[in-house]
């Protein structure tokens, strides 16, 4: 269990005026969704919360300690990031890639143990990657690679998940499977914070929403109070029609 806290946080986007400061605590069990149009700064916010970019002002705290005072290794033992873009300039198999999620827990001379391998295998099972385990990542499709990235984060067993569009490239079945996986993680005490493009996934799977407007304005709160059609229409500059299926609002453009 760990608590990530943003305190008067203003992200640093070059060439843009400082936005509204963000102060919130992301608690164990919560599932946060970040919504906003392209270029609103969703990924930048996520990277800043992960300590991968310095903020313009304010700070990010993990269990009360400022991220800048923590070593990257300590941070990685509690917090995992799923990136939108990935580099693989050298060939590596799916299993090798998933196994690097254990890196923060191993000392320099230590090799991966049987229990590390077991965690990697469980993560591959959870994302139905077992049959691909010896394939080179560079030969996989976009959706399969996305699942490898999520499996790597799962092997890290984080208390806090920061996921940048975890459903990117995924087919409908795997979108739901990944959302269910993150939901289970939250039920077991993890905090999940993810950027999403799909309003309906956000409405169905998140309990807190953060709306990021392109001018740096933001508002957040429990999901049901944020899913106001007028606010969402202004967010995306797009007319929306709203329906209801099984008690969950469904948004369709137009």
């Amino acid at each position: 269990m760990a608590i990530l806290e943003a305190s008067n946080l203003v992200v640093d986007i070059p060439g843009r005026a400082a936005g509204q400061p963000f102060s919130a605590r992301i608690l164990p069990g919560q599932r946060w969704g970040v919504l906003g149009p392209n270029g609103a700064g969703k990924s930048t916010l996520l990277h800043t919360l992960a300590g991968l970019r310095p903020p313009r002002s304010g700070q990010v705290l993990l269990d009360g300690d400022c991220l800048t005072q923590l070593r990257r290794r300590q941070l990685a033992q509690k917090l995992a990031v799923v990136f939108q873009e990935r580099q693989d300039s050298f060939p590596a198999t799916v299993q090798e890639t998933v196994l690097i999620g254990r890196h923060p827990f191993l000392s320099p001379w230590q090799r991966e143990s049987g229990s590390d391998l077991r965690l990697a295998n469980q993560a591959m099972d959870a994302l139905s990657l077992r049959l691909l385990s010896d394939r080179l990542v560079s030969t996989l499709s976009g959706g399969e690679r996305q699942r490898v990235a999520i499996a790597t984060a799962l092997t890290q067993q984080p208390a806090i998940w920061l996921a940048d569009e975890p459903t990117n490239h995924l087919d409908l079945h795997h979108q739901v499977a990944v959302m269910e996986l993150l939901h289970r993680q939250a039920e077991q005490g993890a905090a999940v914070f993810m950027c999403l493009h799909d309003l309906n996934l956000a409405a169905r799977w998140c309990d807190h929403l953060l709306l990021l407007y392109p001018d740096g304005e933001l508002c957040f709160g429990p999901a049901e109070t944020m899913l106001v059609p007028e606010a969402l229409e202004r967010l995306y500059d797009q007319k929306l029609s709203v329906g209801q299926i099984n008690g969950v609002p469904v948004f369709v453009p137009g």
Partner: protein
Amino acid sequence: MLAALGAMALLVAVTVGSVSMTLSELWLAIGGGGDPLFRELVFSLRLPRALAAFATGGLLALAGALMQVLLRNPLADPYVLGISGGAAVGALASMLLGLGTAMVSGSAFAGALLSTLLVFGLAQGRGSWTPTRLLLTGVVIAAGWGAVITFMLSLSPADRLPGMLYWLMGDLSYARSPWLAWLVLIPVLIVTLPLGRSLNVLARGPLQAAALGVAVKPLAWLVYGLASLLTAVAVTTAGSVGFVGLIVPHMLRLVLGNDQRIILPASVMAGGALLTIADTLARTLMAPEQLPVGVITALLGVPTFLFLLYRSR
């Protein structure tokens, strides 16, 4: 297996030459008995040269493996950032002035360090440091050194030209003392071994590495510093022997996969063995003429590499 190959290469290098000897004669000579000529031959000529060749090959292959991971570019080799160019300018300047072997080595090392610091300083720039920026800075500086080298060659008197050209192609016949190379190679290998897994993670990009707990900047600078030191020492020992640093790590990746914990020590053994064998061939093929060893490494390495690449997935 690679260790056995390395030992074999050293053994062959010591026994073969203008005066060949049998294994039993070698054994006697090492034990302090037998023909004094053989003893002299082994201890003051062949063994130092074979050890120098092995260490140089190991230095270059390790430097190449590190540079490829650091720059995340499979085309990187120890010379890509202009280190050999700086060393060559230093060495050729000493040759042009007619200075002795020790001065040639010394100024080659000075040139290599100068070039390293130049690239290091300029690539920092004002903005953030990226592999692309480091690569571009290095390549442009290497091109600059290339122009200076050509200029010096065109100025130099005809009787000094062959020595200069041999140096540029890599030549172990001046390498009398292998100790500096070994003194650098072994500690650096020991330092890099525990970095292996962090380098595996770094190969997946700096952001991903940072998210997995790697302190990316200190690691990158450490690797750059170590690779530069390795290259500077290799160039000082044997001139700019091409090809070993680029090809050996790749050959091993094709055969052994891309785990740096295996690739780094394996590169040392394979690079050492390759250069030892190449140097033995270089001094025996057209004896008493000696060929530049760089020619042999390329002639051996090109077909082997192409074969492995063709066969791979």
